[in-house]
């Protein structure tokens, strides 16, 4: 029993760590390919006369996009696993094919988006297209291979009651949608509020009059999305990974704790539900304290 518990703890920690890496790279991929809510500013920029060299591939929200990539990857991996391939080979093969799908969508999205902005004289930069495709595919590959590995662990390896009832491709869809949702909610703020408007005053929400007037120059000459990734990798990406990792860690941990403490399965589940509610209440108070701290530290709004 103790051996099984230790094994479950080890797999939970591994899943949380992989989730941290996957979440980080998911957000950075959305920065290098500009696929998220901040991309509304990239589209608006050309319309207000701000010709730019940003990549532009927001043809869908991140959750459905990542749901697609991860489901494709997990589906392909299951096919290879069924043929007797080792997981070490099957999972990268699945993620590799998902990366090809990703590159196809990215290239057609950029060309389609930019072509539709012809009336605003926004050119299609071939060097932007060519130089960004590989970073998009590689960042996406790391995120997708991480999710596919998590799905494999949950569907085939996880011991005891924590093994998932869902097949691996459905798990890919579920975690793909979830990671897209988190990346879209968390890391985007760093890219949208801070990086796109670096030449505007720091420490305030970006006013409506600034919208579309994004910064087009950066540390090293004419801007491209590699500079954006360099910036967001310092904070936005890791916080996104932390959020996804913590969600998986605490979701699994409370279940494990419930089953360790409770006698019957019903009692164990009831305990894990109670622990979950306690964690949620604690998070409210942490947020309350954090907001109180910054209100005191930054003070009231002093700009015009």
């Amino acid at each position, binding site marked *: 029993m103790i051996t099984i518990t230790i094994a479950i703890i080890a797999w939970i920690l591994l899943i949380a760590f992989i989730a941290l890496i996957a979440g980080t790279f998911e957000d950075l991929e959305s920065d290098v390919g500009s696929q998220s809510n901040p991309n509304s500013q990239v589209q608006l920029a050309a319309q207000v006369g701000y010709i730019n060299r940003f990549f532009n591939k927001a043809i869908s929200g991140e*959750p459905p996009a990542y749901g697609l990539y991860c489901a494709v990857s997990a589906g392909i991996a299951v096919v290879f696993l069924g043929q007797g391939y080792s997981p070490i080979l099957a999972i990268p093969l699945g993620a590799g094919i998902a990366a090809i799908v990703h590159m196809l969508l990215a290239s057609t999205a950029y060309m389609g988006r930019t072509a539709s902005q012809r009336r605003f004289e926004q050119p299609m930069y071939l060097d932007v297209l060519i130089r960004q495709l590989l970073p998009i595919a590689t960042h996406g590959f790391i995120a997708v291979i991480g999710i596919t590995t998590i799905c494999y662990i949950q569907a085939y390896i996880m011991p005891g009651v924590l093994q998932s009832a869902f097949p691996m491709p459905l798990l890919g869809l579920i975690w793909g949608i979830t990671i897209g949702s988190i990346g879209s909610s968390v890391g985007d703020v760093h890219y949208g509020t801070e990086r796109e408007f670096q030449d505007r005053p720091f420490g305030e929400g970006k006013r409506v009059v600034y919208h579309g007037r994004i910064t087009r120059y950066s540390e090293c000459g004419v801007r491209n999305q590699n500079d954006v990734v360099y910036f967001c990798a310092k904070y936005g990406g890791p916080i996104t990974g932390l959020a996804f990792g913590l969600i998986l860690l605490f979701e699994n941990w409370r279940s494990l704790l419930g089953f360790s403490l409770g006698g019957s399965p019903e009692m164990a589940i009831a305990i894990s539900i109670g622990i979950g509610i306690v964690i949620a209440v604690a998070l409210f108070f942490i947020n309350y304290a954090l907001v109180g701290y910054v209100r005191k530290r930054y003070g009231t709004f002093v700009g015009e």
Partner: protein
Amino acid sequence: MDPILIFICIIVGGILTSIGVHLMPVGGAPAAMGTATGVATGVNMLSTGAAMTGLFTASTVAMVTSNIWLVSLSGAVGSMLMLAFTMLSGTLIYTQGTGIVPVSGRVTKDPITGRDFLSYKTPQTDGHGTPDVSFLSGEIGAFLGGFGGALIFYSLVFYAGFNIALSGIAALGIFLANAVLSAYNIGGTIEGFHDPKFKLLPRALLACFVASLICASFIYIVAYALPIGGI
């Protein structure tokens, strides 16, 4: 009895989903620029992400017990935790990455904690970040949404007799139908129960009732009528 329970669970699940979606603080694209209060993504994107985590937990629990309350509450708590961590991480970025104090744009004072908003708000914005009242509203919303999604999943597994994978996909579809209808009602952004838009809820509840009724009818046809050659 089971067919009636399918209808009841799917309709109640759909209505809970709609209430939950209306309670989630969602700022859409403007929130990503710190121009609107709430989480920086779309309504369906956020609610579906939260519901997916709840669905995963509910599916694991459904393997151990057939107690409807335990399965549904597990989904609700999973969903609530996902949104709580997401909102807290968003606050970390707003406060430590961009130097912005979370405030509401719709009310001048926090209805829960009494904190003043007006003097901290950037002019020409509709608020920014996730203040205390929105955080609490979001947690309650995710709880109700997750409960609704898990309830639908439960009815498909135990009353309709679908297998686990099909139940997961079908529950996701019914959840999305209700979430999208609610998103149309919200029209982009909402801060939580203190937002004036929350008063539009009855309209969405009616729409979700009809949509869930249609979904439940299809589930009934697939689960009962087709196998016995009723159609």
